[in-house]
């Protein structure tokens, strides 16, 4: 018979909490990060693509052992719906920042949404990573913000300069006139600022049409009719919603100006989504040139193939790629900070200077940030529709295909 003394019983009782809590302590804690993105409303598809990228990255970071500097802590992703309006984004951001365990946030896709969400995250001192382009995002002196895409003031010029040079060589004459149709969202209006403020003159281009519209379009006929009379050498279509992109290109085709007859340049990732192919068909899209803050690089083909396979997407657009990269960037900063403290994490994010890990997910292959949180020396992705695929054509080091001047089919 085992004898149990009063003393040993007392010792066991005192040790019990420590023994029982042992597995919990041994098990690494989780680090909560959030993605705020539109999952309902007209922009929901873009939000879905963002969620896919972030979810896959969290899976990969956790499968690789989590944040090693923090005892293998696992990342936990909270996804919040940004809805369809700035008011909804603000309310969703306020709900998110109420969670004190949150260490970083990402989102909120459209620049106007990001502008609203970061007003909230900045007050809560929550580090926030975004792919939004509008210059105004990083021009507000915010301290808890990281923007990985090139700003709007650079993004169009990045595509126009090589395109015009190519036109001179390929088409035999430089385009001299441009027609510009843009929706009135923050990003597209921001894109236009450098062109309207002397950029076109520097490129020897004359604007023959500069129209804005409020999305969604019910009919693109009035716009394309004006464009027909303006007879431009080059058309710039700045749209946020896939439905508007489709209507504009479809009407352009209907008016006999599509399929390469008038080259189309579109500064938006939505021009490279699988949905637009499904809606318009490869013929109508052939030759259309798109510009985005990020796109697939041939140097990362195995990774892109792997992500495509796992996500079920035929190719990856900026929304998925950049959000995959954002999670890796936060994980990398957490490794360096060795802490889930928001200030330390923000310090580590700003101190990022790498050509490895997260940098591989961004064109240019080098990640570092300026004081305002904007990526230093960012590189825009230029893609062109070729045989039903939006292939990266610039920068050349990352290109899957060569940029060609669109020709009539």
């Amino acid at each position: 018979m085992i004898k149990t003394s009063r003393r040993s019983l007392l010792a066991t009782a005192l040790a019990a909490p420590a023994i029982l809590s042992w597995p919990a302590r041994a098990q690494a804690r989780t680090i909560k990060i959030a993605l705020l993105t539109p999952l309902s409303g007209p922009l929901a598809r873009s939000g879905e693509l963002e969620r896919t990228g972030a979810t896959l990255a969290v899976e990969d970071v956790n499968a690789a052992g989590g944040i090693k500097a923090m005892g293998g802590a696992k990342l936990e992703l909270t996804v919040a719906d940004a809805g369809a309006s700035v008011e909804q984004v603000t309310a969703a951001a306020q709900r998110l920042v109420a969670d004190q365990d949150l260490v970083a946030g990402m989102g909120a896709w459209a620049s106007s949404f990001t502008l609203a969400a970061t007003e909230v995250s900045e007050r809560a001192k929550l580090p926030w990573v975004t792919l939004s382009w509008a210059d105004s995002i990083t021009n507000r002196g915010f301290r808890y913000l990281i923007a990985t895409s090139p700003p709007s003031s650079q993004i169009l010029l990045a595509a126009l300069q090589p395109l015009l040079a190519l036109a001179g060589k390929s088409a035999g004459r430089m385009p001299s006139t441009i027609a510009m149709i843009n929706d009135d969202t923050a990003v597209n209006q921001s894109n236009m600022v450098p062109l309207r403020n002397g950029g076109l003159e520097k490129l020897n281009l004359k604007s023959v049409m500069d129209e804005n519209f409020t999305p969604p379009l019910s009919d693109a006929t009035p716009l394309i009719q004006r464009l027909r009379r303006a007879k431009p050498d080059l058309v710039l279509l700045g749209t946020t919603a896939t439905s508007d992109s489709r209507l504009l290109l479809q009407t352009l085709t209907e008016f006999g100006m599509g399929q390469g007859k008038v080259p189309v340049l579109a500064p938006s990732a939505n021009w490279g989504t699988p949905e637009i192919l499904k809606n318009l068909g490869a013929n109508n899209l052939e030759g259309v040139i798109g510009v985005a803050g990020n796109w697939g690089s041939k140097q990362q083909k195995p990774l892109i193939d792997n992500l495509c396979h796992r996500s079920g997407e035929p190719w990856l657009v900026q929304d998925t790629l950049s959000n995959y990269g954002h999670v890796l960037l936060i994980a990398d900063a957490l490794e360096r900070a060795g802490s889930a403290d928001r200030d330390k994490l923000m310090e580590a994010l700003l101190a990022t200077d790498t050509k490895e890990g997260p940098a591989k997910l961004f064109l240019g292959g080098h990640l570092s940030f300026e004081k305002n949180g904007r990526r230093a020396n960012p590189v825009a992705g230029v893609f062109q529709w070729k045989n039903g695929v939006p292939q990266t054509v610039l920068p050349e080091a990352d290109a899957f295909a060569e940029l060609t001047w669109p020709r009539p089919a």
Partner: protein
Amino acid sequence: MSFADHLESLLQILSAGLLLGCLYGLMCAGLGLIFGIMRVINFAQGEFMMLAMYAGLNGVAFLAPGRAWAFPVAMAVALAVALLFYGIGAATHFLLVSRVSGSRVVGSEDGGHTGQLILTLGLSLVLQNGGLMLFGSSPTSIGNAAADNSWTVGPLWGEDVMIFVNQARAWSAILALVAVGLTILMMNRTGVGRRLRAVASNPVAAVYMGVDVERAFRTAFGIGLALTAIAGVCVATFYPFQPYTGFDFVIIMYAGVVLGGMGSVGGAFLGGLVIGLVQQLSTLVLAPQLQNTAVFVVFLAVLLVRPQGLFGRGVERA
């Protein structure tokens, strides 16, 4: 801009406004019929149209006619979808709408409008989010060759003035005209129409005359949804849609019904037509951003002069 430029723009935009206006008119006729006969404001009408768009898309995909034949097949599918939505409308009325309308609300203080408002708004949210779960958020449309092609009219003036008439929109507008014409004929020349007009005019008297009022309401709700379903499938042939698309159109529908004159099918159609024309023609003098502003300025101006709507008195109710 030269005279030729102005002339071409005017003719082009006029034709686009007429084609779009016919489809708006069909949508408004559906909503106007429900309101005119039942006095029910159906806020879920846009969402029923969205469901019809998906039904049309899946119907065409099921028959898989290829891009060249997709449009004529879509037109046939639109008629089948209309039948389906007649049934859905009748069932929705039987199961839900009849609880807050008709004989159930006789004598109630607000005529049942509060219940109707909550029910149809709730239904609209359920359908939107259900659609999102079921169909996903990707914008889609019925891929067809007619939407990419147009008939060229001209040259009309010198060599430069030409009008492009989109084939999908033109056929859709014709179908809309036929559907509205048949509805007006049905309302005025058939027994069903007579019963519907009787309950619209005075439901109590209609009961005394042996008309089954609830059944007439069910029929009206079904026809209203069927008309909007035809418009939905037509729009789906050239307009990318997703589960939230209904909201973009429901405001136009209400404006058209009120502008045309509440309670009149023909008036609602003409109200929709006017909205399509104003929306397009405004771009001749205003920035495209102000298209919808122009619509509502005209809307308010008309209501200021004729509170009963443009055709409120001229056209007999329902």
